[in-house]
């Protein structure tokens, strides 16, 4: 019983996404593929404890799921067009159970379907997490702070769109690949971000997806080893992840990057990050994620010596601002310039940002407060701290800012 349960859990962890991707690519119906696979796992729970764990659990699950998929299609009376594909599915699956041939890995195609421009951008990340990693709607909902039922409905609608509009399970044409890949990368990064804002886990409703995002990032670099931006994204996420422990002190207080104890940075994650970034460079196509990873890499150099090279970081941010002038990049540049060339130079860059863009942006006010404090502008700094504290979601960040503000008096 225990052995069967373990085998099922193992198969779910290792093969869920591959099985869904394979079944969905043949049936062109993600929801039906998921349902069929869920039935197959259910069947395994009753059969394996008695008959023993099959020699090739994946093939067993695939055969069971495929049978259910074909039955369901017959019952629903699928369109004639889909029948040849389902027959292909039967043939391929029959071969797989007899030969040792691995069934093709279609997860990359599934990732491109999930991040298709015809899918609502807000649903691309949730779709990937559910179909490729097998996360349930409740888990995804908690990461995006929506009701589980609402998330379930949105995911169902998105899958219906894939089926009804017939979004192709195929790799994009070469000319289409860069914009489509950018959608995939954005969706994975959004999953990582959902787990980053609340690093302390202070909000019990919110469970981050950082580990899942890194999993997807590693998968993508294996499936597309020659895409430098995929490697750049992985390097960026790993750099941030390496510092997770160091972002909190012993009492749970927030520790800014420049004051973190470098001994608490994860060496294996840093090594993996540097290796990913290094393998992106020779591919000769620079991009936003490689640049962001390079900035994090420059920060991480502090583990080897006295301080970070702020002039180098400021230059990297300059490049990032030209490539992708997001508020985050503009703030990063101002902070780096303040370190490299003085608070006044940094403040000049901050002050030039349009007020409407930054009015409700917590990191802007936190940085403004810090720079105004360094410039000796006590009243303005006090105001900025108050605004930053008021806009903070994270209790630890709020406490850190309050402590900084208290030093003004």
């Amino acid at each position, binding site marked *: 019983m225990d052995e069967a349960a373990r085998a099922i859990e193992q198969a779910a962890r290792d093969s869920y996404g591959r099985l869904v991707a394979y079944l969905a690519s043949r049936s062109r119906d993600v929801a039906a593929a998921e349902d069929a696979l869920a039935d197959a796992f259910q069947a395994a729970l009753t059969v394996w404890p008695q008959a023993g764990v099959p020699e090739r659990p994946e093939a067993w699950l695939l055969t069971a799921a495929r049978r259910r998929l074909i039955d369901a299609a017959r019952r629903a009376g699928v*369109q*004639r067009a889909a029948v040849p594909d389902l027959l292909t599915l039967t043939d391929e699956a029959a071969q797989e159970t007899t030969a040792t041939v691995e069934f093709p890995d279609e997860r990359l195609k599934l990732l491109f379907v999930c991040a*298709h421009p015809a899918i609502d951008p807000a649903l691309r990340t949730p779709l990937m997490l559910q179909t490729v990693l097998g996360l349930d709607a409740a888990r995804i909902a908690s990461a995006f702070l929506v009701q589980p039922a609402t998330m379930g409905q949105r995911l169902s609608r998105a899958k219906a769109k894939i089926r*009804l509009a*017939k*979004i*192709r399970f195929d790799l994009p044409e070469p000319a*289409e690949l860069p914009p489509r890949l950018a959608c995939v990368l954005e969706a994975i990064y959004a999953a990582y971000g959902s787990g980053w804002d609340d690093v302390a886990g202070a909000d019990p409703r919110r469970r981050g997806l950082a580990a899942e995002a890194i999993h997807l990032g590693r998968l993508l670099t294996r499936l597309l080893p020659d895409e430098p931006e995929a490697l750049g994204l992985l390097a960026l996420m790993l750099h941030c992840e390496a510092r997770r422990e160091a972002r909190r002190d012993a009492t749970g207080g927030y520790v800014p990057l420049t004051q973190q104890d470098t001994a608490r940075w994860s060496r294996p994650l840093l090594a993996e990050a540097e290796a990913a970034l290094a393998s992106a460079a020779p591919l000769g196509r620079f991009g936003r994620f490689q640049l962001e990873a390079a900035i994090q890499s420059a920060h991480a150099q502090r583990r080897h010596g006295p301080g970070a090279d702020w002039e180098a970081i400021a230059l990297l941010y300059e490049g990032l601002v030209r490539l992708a002038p997001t508020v985050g990049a503009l703030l990063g540049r101002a902070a780096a310039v303040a370190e490299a060339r003085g608070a006044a130079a940094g403040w000049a860059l901050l002050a030039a940002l349009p007020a409407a863009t930054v009015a409700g942006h917590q990191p802007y006010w936190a940085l403004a407060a810090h720079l105004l404090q360094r410039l000796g502008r006590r009243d303005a700094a006090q105001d900025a701290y108050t605004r930053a504290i008021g806009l903070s979601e994270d209790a630890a960040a709020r406490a850190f800012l309050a402590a900084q503000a208290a030093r003004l008096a």
Partner: protein
Amino acid sequence: MNYILLIYEDADAFTARTDPARAATHFAGWQAYAQALREAGVMTGGAALQVPGAATTVRLRDGERLVQDGPFAETKEQLGGFFVIDVPDLDAALAWAARAPAASYGAMEVRPEMSMSH
């Protein structure tokens, strides 16, 4: 698989149809597009619609026929016509929609045909 490409145009585009200075250019673009669809062997149907001012909307409520002058919804952009094309998947349909003249000056909506075969 059939996709219906719905053509949405603003008032200016409807005016262009009858403006002597612009009509020829306006229709030349659409004729070239329709020809490209035919030559690719994907066109299965379509129609150009008269101006929204020529539309009449009918509803039956409590057995009473309510007839109203004008299109169903008064929006800035109105349905000006449609094509039905037979292509393998959404990406192919979107590629054709992007080539339509209205994609540049209005909008193209792509809808899969609902199959009634089963």
